């Protein structure tokens, strides 16, 4: 905000220092981020577009794509509902143990994906708590789709909550309380007051959650059993093809995931940009008059 009144005369570096720093930073990003991204597409197209399309048009690849879509299609909505509920109770109320609850919500971020997969094997696997019971009733969780979904839900658990909690805390609950006092029901208040305020943060969280859900490797690898055409998600299919030295096919499937990453980054940038604009519009209001109605950016 202070950029408008900033005096550029004193507090900056000599032009050559600036140029040098920008050059080093960009070189680093080129080497570590841009080059790996470019390599995915180059390797995928190394034998031409024909070979690329052929590698993708294969039943195992299709079933991996389908399984990945199903997994994300279940995991993301589950974590979306959780994220909104958790953010509502953590951001809008004061209660004992709130800080601890917030820490627990973060826990899956710091657990290794391999450990995340292992815990479900210990519960539902053949040697696990429910293993014998599940075998008796002919229900398969580990080395089957439910295990993959569970592991994915675990690793993407905090994404949406993490995005919404600080956002809703910063916004406070004045607007919601006004709506309730004016006679809105809880659901109406959420739908018409809270949701418009958090929509960009929500989109941002959902898109990151989705990217991780579709791309998860370690946790899914432990519970999947790697049955081709049945329990292989796209990242696992990439691994199998790569280990079989089918480089073009591996990078072809990987390129789809890289495209997903690029789309994610674009949507994320747009959401961030829109959110910034709205925040700026709110910040420019005089402090005595907090916005009583949604501000149109």
């Amino acid at each position, binding site marked *: 905000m202070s950029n408008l009144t900033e005096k550029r005369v004193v507090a900056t570096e000599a032009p050559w220092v600036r140029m040098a720093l920008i050059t080093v930073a960009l070189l680093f990003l080129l080497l570590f981020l841009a080059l790996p991204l470019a390599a995915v597409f180059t390797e995928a197209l190394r034998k031409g577009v024909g070979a690329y399309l052929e590698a993708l048009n294969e039943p195992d690849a299709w079933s991996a794509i389908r399984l990945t879509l199903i997994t994300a299609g279940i995991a993301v909505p589950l974590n979306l509902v959780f994220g909104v509920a958790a953010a509502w109770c953590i951001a809008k109320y004061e209660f004992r143990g709130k800080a601890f609850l917030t820490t627990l919500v973060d826990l899956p971020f710091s657990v290794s994906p*391999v450990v995340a997969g292992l815990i479900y094997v210990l519960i539902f696997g053949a040697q696990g708590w429910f293993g014998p019971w599940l075998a008796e009733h002919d229900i398969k969780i580990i080395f089957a789709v439910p295990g993959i979904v569970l592991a994915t839900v675990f690793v993407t658990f905090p994404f949406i909550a993490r995005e919404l909690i600080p956002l809703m805390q910063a916004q406070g609950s004045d607007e919601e309380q006004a709506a309730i006092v004016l006679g809105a029901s809880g659901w109406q208040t959420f739908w018409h007051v809270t949701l418009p305020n958090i929509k960009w943060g929500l989109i941002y969280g959902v898109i990151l959650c989705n990217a991780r859900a579709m791309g998860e490797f370690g946790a899914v690898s432990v519970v999947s059993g790697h049955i081709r055409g049945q329990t292989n998600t796209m990242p696992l299919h990439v691994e199998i093809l790569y280990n079989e030295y089918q480089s073009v096919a591996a990078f072809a499937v990987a390129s789809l995931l890289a495209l997903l990453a690029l789309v994610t980054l674009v949507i994320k940038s747009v959401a961030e940009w829109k959110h910034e604009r709205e925040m700026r519009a709110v910040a420019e209001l005089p402090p005595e008059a907090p916005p009583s109605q949604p501000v149109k950016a």
Partner: protein
Amino acid sequence: MAGAAANMAAPMPTPAAPGRGGSKKVLPGFNLTLGYTVLYLSLIVLIPLSALVFKSFALTGPQFWEAISSPRVLASYRLTFGASFAAALVNVVFGLLVAWVLVRYSFPGKRIVDALVDLPFALPTAVAGISLTALLAGNGWIGQYLEPLGIKLAFNPNGVVIALIFIGLPFVVRTVQPVLEDTERELEEAAMSLGATRWQTFSRVIFPSIAPALLTGFAMAFARAIGEYGSVIFIAGNMPMVSEITPLIIIGKLEQYDYAGATAVAVFMLAISFVLLLVINALQVWQRRRLGAA
């Protein structure tokens, strides 16, 4: 959920009963959302994690100790923690540089560069793994120029560090960037008008204010790197005692049906993640206090 659905179906807004206990209690939904949060958290995270801890009780103390301290496992700790530390250190230096350049300077394509920083969050780790390997292997884009010089970056611990740098970079940039945006330029101007050089201003005025954020970023990158699996296993070469990371030890034990051994190592990893999580939380509290005091 049923209550919420009923409210949505209601044609007329039903006036809410005025809160009895002051304005804080007016908002409805506390019991519902807290209950759901705790239930879902327990089912997905807490009960499964406690299963891990309970399973490890099946081992006697010496068995547990042997599982987590055999030479091969110890070698994997050395690699995992060493490489994670090195990568997080590199990320602190370059992450600060990238954040600085993005906040303080303008250059063409800045928006795209800013968006690209999040690539490691969005790109599946397996994709990062095979693509870094393709670049750095002896016949790769970069590897072919380095190998004649005797520099090998793939299929050894160097590759592990490089994969972990890729994974951890956004953590540092994204924790430092907002703090750097909020630093008060007036302080810098004051320092300089009092005769400080630009470097003195940076090291004595700017750096202390972003140090907590840098440490937080370091801890987050380190914590993420310790558990990382997908990007590392393709480039590491996975030689026992040399380039085998701890998560791979767990997978190896599982594949040999050594569930007890896998559980023991996993419990050890889980304990470390938990400690790191507490450290990160403490760092964030410190950072907020710093900012609040400023």
